């Protein structure tokens, strides 16, 4: 029974468990499939954006936790994107939406979106919606006419009709590296390109080319979004705001340019590339934001400037400027304002006075300022003026300049002349500067010059000078000072007189030294010491040093002690004399004088005149005439002499720093031909080269000359001696070879003194005389020293006559040997005699007395005692005597007759 009851309970238990199970699954979930899902899917698109909306199925109402919708995007049936949308319980029942922007234009390929719900581990079935791609009868490129920002990446597709053959897709001016073509489907190709260039013309072409050559395409606008900076707003008329800004790259091709809106107004205020716009506003004294909105298809930018426009008034320029009451030296100007509010503003106006290119600005103040008076104008002068203004308070900007207005002032008497003087010889030249147009104030009709002596002022001389002359030469007594007055006259009258006192010429007056000056940049910078006498300033005048020039001058104020002297007449290479005078109440006083070149120039070659050369031994002196200033185009600082040896082309030079030098010597030259070039040394280099050529052959010439002279002298001497000897042969023979009786020799050998050795010659010291000795000689030089320099000239002579008495009767006249009168030469002990002169019978050798010679002449061959038997008496004690002794003892002259012995004349050397 129990078993039966148990069996009957089983179905009930099963039912209960099934009920429980069905209760648990009451949210629609059964075996992993979710009943809650999406319904009413709607897929739409906007451009490349796809938008999906859907609703929950009713079964979703029981969901009590977050429900997830999974979405998949398929492009041409290829899964391209996955996304999830979470729906909270409170959102269940509402319409859900999701969007996604495709990289590809929707025309290019079908875009499908699949959707399913997921709740915990259960998912619903997929729901799918599809946007079909475009089917076309001809090839098309998409997207068409779309805007892209430079720097972005874009994908274009080419959709071909069936049968067409794709060739390529491209963008002009893009390299293949920037582009990538892919195939999306059989008839669809995509080109992905990095857009790095803005469209140059209307748009950038995206081309799809087919085979054969047929092209299709689309336009792409590639550019930049607005890029506005530097917004600044102001008011010009106090009724509107004017803003300007900069926008460098805000450009898109035609019809897509950036538009600008001011103050959020829908009206377009300006279009790129305009950078200003204006809008009427109520201008009041408060700060507010002035907002500019710039927009183009690629973006929008807002920019603000905070300003109180009453402090930013940028005025319009004055209108209708006219010159009223034009006088000689002043004029009044009037103008109008186009903006009535300006008449209530405190204004500052500037008048720009253009005087022949030179601008002067003067300022005027006033409320609603509308006139100005210009003073200190030049009479008879044309001016050009323009005016600009601004508010006196809160300076913001000047207005632009008004239109220019011209006026011409009335004429007036000329200005006083600038007068100076030039004293030349006995003439006084009064000179004045031609009045400039702004000084004459009208046509100059003439000049009037009056002069008087400083000592007789009441007596005036007067003359008129034509208007085209600017000097007057007066022959006056320059020893007396004069006062000269010059006036200029035009139609309006005479100028104020200009007076100058001409000093009397004073030959004893103090002179100033002239110093040198070098100009620079075409002018002289001159300075001088202040002078207490310069009560009315200084005058600097200058003129060419060479003369024949019209003096120019410059007057400077008393407190100025330097000046830059410039003249259009200055020439480089021309020497000028500049003088500084002190201006006094009387005559000007010369303070300083300078000479110089405004610019030195190289002196032309051939500067040196009359160049001569003179050889001096091994030296060669080149000399020239002094160089005149006229030929100096630069200061000469010295000279250089170049010697070019023609043999080896070697150049040596010799120089001097003396600018006054007029010769240079080249030293230690050798034989040969030389080119001597002398140049002047200047600050601009060596110049003025002048050359001469010379050949040096010193040794040969002199030697030959000397030899010839010597030979001639010897020949002449010999000839003379020969003639004399010939004519007086008898006398000579009798004198030299008197008939001598043959000596009778009584003994031989022992008494002979064959060798005249000194120690063997016996003579007393008292017998030594400082006179030339006469030695007998057989025609050959003794010891070979006869004609050697520094050797005494020795006469071998018997003292106090001949050794043989019979000779006494033939005693020659005393030989005057002025040994004391003949100066001794260096190197020579004392004797001036250096030459041998032959004697028909004897070779006479003079030996000075001071020659402490132990010389004892040997008896020459053929002079044996035996041969002396014909008149001579041999003597055993020959004595030496000197010429001094001869002078001391005129009674014992040297036994030599002047007619027999010719004394040599001293040679020139």
């Amino acid at each position, binding site marked *: 029974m129990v078993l039966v009851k148990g069996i009957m309970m089983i179905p009930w238990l099963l039912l209960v468990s099934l009920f429980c199970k069905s209760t648990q699954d009451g949210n629609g979930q059964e075996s992993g499939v979710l009943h809650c899902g999406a319904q009413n899917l709607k897929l739409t698109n906007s451009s490349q954006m796809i938008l999906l909306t859907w609703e929950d199925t009713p079964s979703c109402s029981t969901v009590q936790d977050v429900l997830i919708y999974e979405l998949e995007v398929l492009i041409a049936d290829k899964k391209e994107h996955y996304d999830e949308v979470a729906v909270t319980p409170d959102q269940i029942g509402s319409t859900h939406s999701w969007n996604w922007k495709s990289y590809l234009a929707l025309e290019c390929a079908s875009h499908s979106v699949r959707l399913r719900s997921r709740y915990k581990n259960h998912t619903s079935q997929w729901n799918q919606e599809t946007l079909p791609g475009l089917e076309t009868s001809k090839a098309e*490129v998409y997207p*068409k*006419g779309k805007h892209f920002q430079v720097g972005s990446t874009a994908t274009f597709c080419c959709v071909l009709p069936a049968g067409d053959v794709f060739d390529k897709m491209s963008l*002009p*001016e893009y390299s293949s590296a920037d582009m990538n073509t892919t195939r999306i489907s059989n008839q669809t190709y995509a080109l992905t390109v990095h857009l790095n260039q803005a469209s140059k*013309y*209307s*748009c950038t*072409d*995206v*081309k799809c*080319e087919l085979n*054969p*050559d*047929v*092209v*299709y*395409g*689309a*336009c792409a606008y590639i550019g930049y979004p607005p890029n506005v900076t530097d917004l600044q707003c102001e008011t010009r008329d106090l009724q509107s705001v004017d803003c300007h800004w900069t926008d460098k790259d805000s450009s898109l*091709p*035609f*019809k897509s340019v950036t538009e600008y809106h001011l103050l959020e107004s829908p009206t377009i205020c300006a279009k790129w590339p305009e950078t200003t716009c204006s809008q009427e506003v109520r201008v009041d004294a408060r700060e507010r934001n002035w907002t500019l909105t710039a927009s183009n298809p690629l973006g929008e930018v807002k920019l603000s400037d905070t300003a109180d426009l009453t402090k930013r008034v940028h005025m319009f320029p004055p209108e209708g400027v006219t010159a009223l009451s034009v006088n000689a030296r002043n004029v009044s100007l009037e103008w109008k304002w186009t903006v009535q509010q300006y008449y209530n503003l405190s204004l500052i106006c500037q008048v720009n006075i253009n005087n022949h290119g030179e601008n002067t600005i003067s300022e005027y103040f006033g409320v609603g300022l509308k006139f100005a008076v210009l003073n200190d104008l030049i009479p008879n002068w044309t001016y050009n003026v323009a005016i600009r203004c601004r508010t006196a308070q809160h300076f913001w900007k000047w207005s632009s300049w008004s239109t220019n207005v011209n006026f011409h002032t009335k004429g007036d008497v000329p200005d006083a002349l600038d007068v100076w003087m030039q004293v030349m010889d006995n003439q006084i030249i009064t000179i004045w500067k031609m009045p400039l147009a702004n000084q004459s104030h009208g046509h100059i009709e003439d000049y009037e010059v009056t002069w008087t002596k400083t000592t007789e002022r009441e007596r005036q001389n007067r003359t008129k000078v034509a208007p085209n002359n600017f000097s007057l030469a007066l022959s006056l007594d320059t020893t007396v000072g004069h006062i000269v007055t010059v006036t200029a006259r035009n139609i309006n009258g005479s100028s104020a007189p200009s007076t100058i006192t001409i000093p009397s010429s004073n030959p004893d007056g103090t002179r100033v030294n002239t110093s040198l000056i070098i100009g620079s940049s075409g002018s002289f910078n001159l300075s001088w010491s202040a002078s207490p006498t310069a009560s009315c300033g200084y005058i600097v005048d200058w003129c060419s040093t060479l003369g024949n020039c019209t003096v120019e001058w410059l007057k400077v104020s008393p407190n100025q002690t330097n000046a830059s002297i410039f003249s259009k007449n200055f020439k480089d290479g021309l020497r000028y004399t500049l003088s500084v005078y002190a201006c006094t109440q009387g005559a000007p006083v010369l303070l300083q004088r300078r000479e110089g070149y405004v610019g030195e120039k190289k002196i032309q070659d051939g500067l040196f005149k009359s160049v001569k050369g003179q050889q001096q031994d091994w030296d060669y002196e080149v000399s020239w005439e002094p160089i005149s200033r006229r030929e100096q185009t630069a200061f000469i600082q010295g000279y250089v002499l170049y010697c070019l040896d023609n043999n080896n082309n070697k150049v040596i030079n010799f120089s001097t720093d003396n600018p006054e030098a007029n010769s240079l010597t080249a030293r230690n030259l050798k034989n040969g031909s030389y080119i001597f070039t002398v140049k002047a040394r200047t600050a601009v280099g060596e110049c003025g080269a002048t050359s001469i050529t010379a050949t040096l052959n010193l040794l040969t010439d002199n030697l030959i000359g000397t030899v010839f002279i010597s030979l001639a002298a010897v020949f002449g001497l010999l000839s003379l001696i020969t003639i004399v000897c010939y004519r007086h042969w008898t006398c000579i023979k009798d004198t030299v070879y008197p008939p001598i009786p043959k000596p009778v020799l009584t003994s031989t050998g022992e008494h002979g003194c064959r060798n005249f050795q000194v120690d063997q010659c016996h003579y007393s010291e008292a017998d030594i005389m400082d006179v030339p000795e006469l030695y007998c000689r057989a025609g050959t030089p003794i010891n070979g020293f006869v004609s050697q320099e520094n050797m005494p000239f020795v006469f071998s002579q018997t003292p106090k006559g001949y050794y043989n008495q019979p000779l006494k009767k033939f005693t020659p006249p005393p030989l005057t040997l002025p040994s004391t009168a003949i100066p001794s030469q260096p190197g020579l002990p004392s004797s001036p005699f250096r030459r041998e002169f032959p004697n028909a019978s004897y070779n006479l050798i003079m030996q000075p007395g001071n020659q402490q010679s132990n010389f004892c002449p040997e008896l020459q061959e053929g002079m044996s005692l035996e041969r002396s038997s014909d008149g001579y008496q041999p003597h055993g004690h020959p004595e030496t005597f000197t010429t001094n002794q001869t002078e001391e003892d005129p009674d014992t002259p040297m036994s030599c007759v002047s007619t027999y012995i010719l004394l040599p004349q001293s040679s020139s050397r």
Partner: protein
Amino acid sequence: MAARRTRGMTGGSDLSRATVARATAIAELLRYECSILLELYRKKESFTADVTVTESRLVSVPPPSSQLETRDKLWCLHSALLQCRSFLERAITKEEEQLGGGKKGDYETQRKMVKERLSLLLINTGELLKTAGGVMILTPSSEGLELDGPTILFELKLWVYRIFEEVDYWTKTAITTLQALPSVIAKERARTTRVRSTRSARR
């Protein structure tokens, strides 16, 4: 299709050789200028010379056939050139509207020159046609031509290019036609003389 209306006539026996020569010279000059314009446009739009953009002729006039009489040949030519000018004027307007006509460069100058030269050629072909006895009625009328052009910019560019090519084509056709005219004139003059002689003999 274009309809042709002519006044019955015999032929161009009075055609001035000078007018033909002048028209030919103008056409040759136009051809040269047109080639430069095409080159400039190709350079501007990066088109290659061999690119084909023509699907069909824009000018709806059959080319002058050698079978036609001089008068009809001239009518065809003149009518085609008139259409060319209408297209060219429209192309210039559309270009300036849609693609911007800001700066005037070489291309714009050349375009203007071609338009003026084409007008000059039309005056001369008109004279010839008038001499030949043809009627200067444009078929189709300017209202009938599809002058609007495409609205899509790239297609507009292609359309402009097609117009330039059309002008180039009809300029070449004009040269060929005009150069063939003197011989035609001579033949027709001879035929006219022969007919008159026959009639005189019959009388």
